[in-house]
């Protein structure tokens, strides 16, 4: 056999044979370990909360954001996170569950955030993505929009845009487009 084989040769242990012939041993994948690390180090303010439907599936969860300042204050927004086995080489897939009036989130819930697509790097973590999402509610960006109408509205008339955001958050319609009610009603 090859030198490297013998190089590495040590006492063969009995249970190895058992392991090779027996049941499939469960391995920890690089993606799993990384998500575990990112999640256990998350430090979220009181305005945000994660929910895991299945605690054994760390790759799929929901994030709730309740902005306490800015134009979207008083709303409650949910984002689904879908993390592939390619993480962190592939960005997590994030979608807004509600249909909302926002220049950087389209009516299907797609989010235009650079680090979710063109600027994603493996060194970035889930904390960075979550902070980025929070930022979108504090500073909606009219310059590079996904929802063109909302962006034009924001650019041309900030006050009018604010009113439209409130109306949409209350479950109203803007230009014949109906939006989901996201305002928190405290009882």
């Amino acid at each position, binding site marked *: 056999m090859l030198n490297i*084989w013998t190089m590495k040769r040590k006492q063969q242990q009995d249970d190895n044979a058992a392991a090779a012939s027996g049941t*499939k*041993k*469960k391995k920890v994948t*690089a993606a799993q370990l990384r998500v575990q*690390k990112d999640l256990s180090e998350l*430090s979220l303010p009181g305005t945000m909360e994660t929910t895991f439907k299945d605690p054994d599936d*760390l790759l799929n969860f929901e994030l709730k954001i309740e902005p306490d300042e800015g134009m979207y204050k008083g709303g409650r927004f949910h984002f689904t996170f879908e993390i592939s086995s390619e993480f962190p080489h592939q960005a997590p897939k994030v979608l807004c569950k509600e249909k909302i009036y926002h220049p950087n989130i389209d009516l299907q819930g797609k989010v235009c955030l650079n680090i979710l697509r063109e600027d994603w790097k493996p060194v970035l973590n889930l904390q960075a993505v979550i902070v980025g999402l929070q930022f979108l509610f504090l500073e909606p960006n009219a310059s590079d929009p996904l929802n063109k109408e909302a*962006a034009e509205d924001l650019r041309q008339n900030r006050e009018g845009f604010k009113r439209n955001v409130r109306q949409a958050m209350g479950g109203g319609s803007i230009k014949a487009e109906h939006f989901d009610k996201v305002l928190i009603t405290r009882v």
Partner: protein
Amino acid sequence: MLKQNQESCSLPPRMDRKEYRLLIEHRGAGGLGCEILKNLALSGFKDIHVIDMDTIDVSNLNRQFLFRASDVGNSKAEIAARFVEKRVKGVSITPHNCKIQDKDDVFYMQFSIVICGLDSIEARRWINSALVNLFDPEDEDSLKPLIDGGTEGFKGQARVVFPTLTSCLECQLDMHAPRTAVPLCTLATIPRQPEHCIEWAHIIAWENDKPFPALDNDDPEHITWLFQKALARAKEFNISGVTYSLTQGVVKNIIPAIASTNAIIAASCCNEAFKIATQSNPCLGFEENYMMYSGNDSIYTYTFKHEKKDDCPVCGNLARELAVDPNITLEEFIASLAERAEAQLKKPSITAEKTLYMQAPPQLEKLSRPNLVKKMGELVGNGDEIGVTDPSLGAVDFKYKMKFSRDFASTA
């Protein structure tokens, strides 16, 4: 037959290639698989397995020479195996018409060398990680040299990995240029290139209109729908250059491929396999391990050593064996981790196939807390791996392979 060949080309003494069982993994449109199969059969290897989940498409016929027009729609692995067995006497080829991920460690353990002609980074990373994890320092047979080939146009590369001993495919990920993504907002509001219009049709228009239940990249009707959407958008913005071919290329991320480059790269891979098996000459691996080939401008090869990365998440972080009494609770186990010299953990989170205990976020902590009083033997099996992370470790994390120090006395 082979004897004749050996006589006419006498080589240094070597081990019999008959003892070698090789696995070829092939996936995708590139088409290294046919070449590799032919080369191994004509290099005297007798026991070859091939995995390929794909069926034959008409666009394969200009490179994948084991297939004929009448084979279109059939399993690549099966047709290829049958063809080469018929042409080269005395070789046994076993086809597996499935995904590489469908096979387990026991399957991979039976081979001496694994050769890949895969067209996706995902599949490469999977097999690389599987072979690294398969390696057991106490079992010499668990070391499976991995030979990987890839092509793009007139260029390609061949590389050899001795899992855990030399730079692995994960260490070399930076050698693949990432596909540049265009911001979603550019696609949505300010398209400038034909590709932007196609991506818009692909990502946004398809979702809105849902013309078919699910997008099938190989269905011409679907591609035509995307093409027409993209074309209409391009017209709206005065952008020229949207064609059917470009649409197909962008949506399927088509990499140009030609028979001659396949021949070069496949033969280079098989030459390395031959050198490993015969030990007739030094193979790529321990010193130089990477051969880059470019035929665009004259011919240029660069053969070099890609260094192993200490912080590689795959080969730099192997599972350590950890003796554990399956009758202690998870809480006691966590306390014992804190005492281990290399770990000295303060707030460890632990997962196995299931989540054992997560310190954060709060909801997950709450959900996993009941596990703390459970016995280790209830939570993991003997030989399973667990992953341990802790904020105090910084970028480091640990993998442990559970080795039960005594039998688990089930309380149930």
